């Protein structure tokens, strides 16, 4: 944070900018803290919106107007609205209020504080010193290496908001990664459809799901096994084991429960 504050100061030397930085920074951190401590999931989601908005403000102070607007449109707008819809559709009961073990909470706070302390310590030391690669005293630009240009320089004169810069980068060097993210989103959609689909299959596909109780569809072999007095499925899977120092005796679980139970949930 101090680094960012420094950047803001160095960037413009403008008091309004510094003031805005502190407002947004405090808002972002505060809403993030509130987000993970709120017990009501709707409140937490709203805190996430606030967090996204204040980060959009931070982008603005860093002279990334385009990124800031995209952040508001995509994250604070589209994605969070979707989140809220899902939460609303699933319904929030009092049972769903998030609770945690007191010891777990203490441990989490301690661990978080430790991590934050270590990061702050590490950041404030080298990253703000001349040793830092792109610190205040960094040399202008070695010819065949990356250069420590500020955003304004990278954008160029005619592109104050960075739109052309973002576009150029995304459709030259990062084209492949960009196209692949499209594939990734397709996968996510298909995955969500597969895992969330219930009984709404077309008639001829019906048994595609119904005939599969985890074991083979045609039960002759399973029946033969049962007759032979063998455990039908000796699945020593021991799903609950955490494999800490070995699970010598894999438990025999109940056969996965009636399929309907599983399906009706959610």
């Amino acid at each position, binding site marked *: 944070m101090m680094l960012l504050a420094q950047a803001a100061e160095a960037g413009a030397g403008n008091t309004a900018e510094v003031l805005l930085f502190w407002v947004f920074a405090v808002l972002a951190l505060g809403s993030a803290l509130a987000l993970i401590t709120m017990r009501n999931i709707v409140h937490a989601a709203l805190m996430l919106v606030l967090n996204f908005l204040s980060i959009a403000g931070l982008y603005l102070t860093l002279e990334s107007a385009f990124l800031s607007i995209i952040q508001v449109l995509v994250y604070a707008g589209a994605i969070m609205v979707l989140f809220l819809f899902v939460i609303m559709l699933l319904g929030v009961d009092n049972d769903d209020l998030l609770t945690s073990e007191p010891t777990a909470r203490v441990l989490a706070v301690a661990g978080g504080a430790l991590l934050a302390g270590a*990061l702050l*310590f*590490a950041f404030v*030391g*080298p990253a703000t010193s001349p*040793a*830092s*690669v792109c610190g205040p005293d960094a040399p202008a630009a070695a010819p065949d*290496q*990356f250069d*420590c240009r500020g955003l304004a320089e990278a954008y160029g004169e005619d592109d104050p908001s960075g739109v052309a810069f973002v576009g150029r980068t995304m459709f*030259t*060097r*990062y*084209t*492949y*990664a960009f196209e*692949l993210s499209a*594939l*990734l989103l*397709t*996968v*996510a959609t*298909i*995955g969500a459809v*597969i*895992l969330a689909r219930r009984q709404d299959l077309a008639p*001829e596909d019906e048994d*595609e799901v119904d*005939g*599969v*109780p*985890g*074991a*083979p*569809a*045609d039960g002759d*072999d399973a029946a033969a*096994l049962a*007759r*032979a*007095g*063998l455990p039908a499925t*000796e*699945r*020593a*899977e*021991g*799903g609950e*084991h*955490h*494999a800490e*120092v*070995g*699970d*010598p005796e*894999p438990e025999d*679980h109940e056969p*996965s429960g009636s399929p309907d139970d599983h*399906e009706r949930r959610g």
Partner: protein
Amino acid sequence: MQIDFIAILPEIILTVTALLVLAADLALRGDAKQFVNPLAGLGTVAAIIATVALWGSERVTFGTMYVVDDFAVLFKLLFLGTLLAILAISWRYIAEHRFFQGEYYFLLLTSFIGMLLMPSSRDLIMLFIALETVSVPAFVMVGMRKRDLYSSESALKFFLLGVLAAALMLFGMSMVYGFAGTTDLVGIAAAISGETASVPLLLGSVMLVLVGFGFKISAVPFHFWAPDTYSGAPMPVAAMLAVASKAAGFAGLVVVAFIAFEPVADVWGPMLGVLAVLTMTVGNLIALQQRDLIRLLAYSSVAQAGYILIPFGLARTGPGAAVVNAAAIEAVVFYLIAYAVMNVGAFAVAIAVERRTGLRSIADYAGLSGRSPLLAMGMTVFLLSLGGAPLTVGLWAKFAILEAIAVDITLFGIVLAGFLVVNSVIAFFYYLKVVRTVWMDEAPAGLPQLQPGFNLSAVVVVLMVGTLVLGVLPGLVTDFSSVISIVAAG
């Protein structure tokens, strides 16, 4: 900017195949749906041809972001070969269990697209996208046996831990970027060399990035998901996770460690070495106590990941480092090839036995030699090879690691070699236990006939022959001095 489409042709072919598979699944009805499998196989063969054509050339495209050299081509061939084997062992398994067939093959192909990207990526963003393209379809595939609570549980575990690892890695990457001012791997190496290399923040972020790969290869503090996920997932998916996904993790680890973080190799080298010792010891000790074959294979694959991590422990920086690092990478690549051959084989046999009966505990393999000599032979060869017996490729794989250690003998190297030997002996104990059950024990009466089917038998035979031929003539794949060209970049 010119895009070199030849360089990305294998990925394009696989993408088109994946989309065709998805469309074909819509058009086909009932039993005909299973014919999306040969369609996917055709696409894979086409991709293999396109990849082989790239051998020997060095193509750079998308700025400096994507590099296709011999190192990448070798890995791509390894992945595509594994894909072919997994398609073959999936066919009847998936058709019989009547999963969402089209979607399954679509996800499988997509996951392999991610793997093809991994060894070519020269940018943190590309590496992250590749890693996610490997993982996200796998999350879904693990959970495909929706009616089985195990499957759901294992998918959830895999997902949550996977997302945590990805988040940690992204956090690390963002700090590395903040430090280096670039996401280009070569640029990072240039930026972090020199005096700035020992800054704690930088080292911390490097560790965070390595955690993400550590999860992928199920190295020991991050291995908790592996056994549960393997045993809950459909078995071809478990084979995919144990072999291809792990090899992809190693490919990414090689690229990021030996190119971007080469200047700090003195720090991550010993660290990964310690991780290797932990991984193989813990994996082997827990594997000793397993009664379920899939869980045994899962812990054995954790232990194998430990062996493959050993060469990383040898890495160093400074003058004379290039020789050591080159030998280390060579050992990793060779071990991964050997590991893919033998481990896919072991999973193929397990699928053949489990199919239609659901039998998978080690006791169920009693008398397999009488029920199906081919499968029994196959299991024996694969397990002995995993253990590192003579006449199998497994021995040479371990030998390659020792060879890498011998390039420049250090005390740490000797310790690593000691752990490798001791662990190999421990591993033999549980591999031989299964082999004894297969050959010595009496088969319980009333078991149905084993019908592995043509595809499975073919895979088992081909991989068995591969294990033995490479065991006699390891030179067939060890001779790739050009593969280690990436060292020079570091």
